[in-house]
């Protein structure tokens, strides 16, 4: 059963990153389960009905979802705060309902026949996304995303087209969620629309908030913890969910910025001499 934990943990890490990249620009999305669904169903249909190889189907799922993300993101990201949250909840609910009403993919009855997600494939996917995010975190792009999170209008006054950057980040998040969805579908072999409801979105958000939004390790750590912790407290039987809930509240009370809240500095200089960015790994900024 360890392989099951590894695959599910990998999927949850990807989901956490899909929320994280959007949160880097200061947006909160509770709609990523919709993009996970798009990835799951698009790749599932392609492998089951069109005999696509798994990797190609996953990539198609990512492409379709990224485009959907950009399309939805463009009008949605003009809204802020609570309003944006409501819209993204709406996205999650409507995609779920939409799938329930498409007989081609089984509707409420679910859709099956997918297979092929292995431990190796999931780990490779996590490594690829990790490397991309790690790369971004060392470049001016990271700074630009963070600047938008800190003060959108000031960032704009520096000449940044804030809407464009936010939509792109949203689309990238949608793509990552779709990758996770595709892996999930081909691991579970049978999926139902309700697998991709709002609850799934809230869980992803929780990984990120618990782990911290300042660096890519936080969300990954949050996902690992949230996936494995319920298993470790299994002996509590029916009290499990309650204890789990209390643990989350306590963690947030003591670490409101998340468990790993350090921020990596993107440029270094010392006495006027530029040092390599790589030297500045993991500055412990603590609670910023």
């Amino acid at each position, binding site marked *: 059963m360890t392989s099951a934990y590894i695959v599910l943990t990998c999927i949850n890490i990807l989901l956490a990153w899909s929320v994280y990249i959007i949160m880097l620009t200061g947006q909160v999305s509770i709609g990523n389960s919709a993009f996970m669904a798009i990835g799951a169903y698009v790749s599932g249909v392609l492998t089951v009905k069109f005999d696509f190889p798994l990797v190609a189907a996953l990539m198609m799922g990512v492409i379709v979802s990224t485009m959907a993300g950009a399309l939805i993101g463009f009008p949605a990201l003009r809204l802020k705060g609570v309003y944006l949250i409501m819209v993204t909840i709406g996205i999650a609910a409507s995609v779920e309902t939409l799938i329930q009403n498409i007989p081609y993919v089984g509707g409420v009855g679910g859709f099956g026949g997918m297979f092929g997600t292995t431990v190796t494939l999931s780990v490779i996917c996590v490594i690829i996304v990790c490397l991309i995010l790690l790369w971004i975190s060392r470049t*001016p792009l990271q700074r630009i995303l963070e600047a938008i999170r800190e003060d959108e209008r000031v960032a704009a006054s*520096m000449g*940044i087209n804030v809407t464009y950057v936010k939509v792109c980040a949203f689309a990238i998040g949608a793509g990552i969620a779709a990758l996770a969805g595709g892996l999930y579908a081909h691991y579970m072999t049978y999926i139902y629309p309700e697998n991709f409801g709002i609850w799934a979105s809230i869980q992803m958000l929780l990984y990120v908030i618990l782990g911290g939004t300042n660096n890519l390790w936080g969300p990954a750590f949050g996902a690992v913890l949230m996936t494995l912790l319920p298993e470790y407290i299994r002996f509590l039987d029916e009290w499990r969910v309650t204890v789990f809930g209390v643990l989350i509240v306590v963690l947030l009370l003591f670490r409101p910025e998340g468990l790993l809240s350090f921020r990596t500095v993107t440029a270094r200089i010392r006495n*006027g001499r530029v040092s390599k960015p790589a030297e500045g790994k993991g500055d412990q900024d603590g609670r910023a």
Partner: protein
Amino acid sequence: MAVLELRELNKSFGGITAVENLSFQVDENQILGLIGPNGAGKTTVINLITGFYQPTSGSIFFEGQDITFSSIYQAGRIGIARTFQNIRLFKRMTVLENVLMGDKEYNLRPFFSVFDFLKGGKTKRKIERAYAILEELGLQDHAMKRAGELSYGDQRRLEIARSIATDPKLLLLDEPAAGMNEEETQLLIEDIGRIKNRFKAIIVVEHDLSVIRQLSHKVVAIDYGKKITEGAPEEVLSHPSVVEAYLGGSNE
């Protein structure tokens, strides 16, 4: 040609008129002081020029180009930079990073900046440039500190450094001396004097008339969103309506 020209600019919020029929122009190599009592609409004018607000009517020209309804980022891109009355730095970033945020090349094409990872030389040049700007304002020793940790005066200085980094043609300073004592204000005036040649023109919105007196070539006085008078500093500052607007009809 004027660097900036406002023509009969109006801005109202609901029924309240914040700026009314305001026209003035700023010429090349000029520092323009914009003065007026609290609530006179000075910051609103800055917000209109930089796209933070859209005017109700009237027009704004920047180097002959109509920018009346340009958005914030468009105003930033054509070369208008500003500071804020209530300091708005990226507080969690380092001082150096704040200045690097002004780099136009990155900001114009944010997603291409990821390839700079491969060009160490270019990144190095950018950092050195940012550091040079910090040196110019005496902030070099704080380069690796978080912006939020700086003293009040240094935060103001950093805001100016950040706007210098965008290489603007026009700089708008919104109450740069607010909350500073006399000594700090004097240092600020020296700083502005040192950097003024980097810009085609500067507009200083200020409450502290000593700043205006020492820096500006031309002063525009407004009250209730309307222009009272404009002209040479000494002339404007001794104008009866200005004195009255400032002293509130000798009640204080």
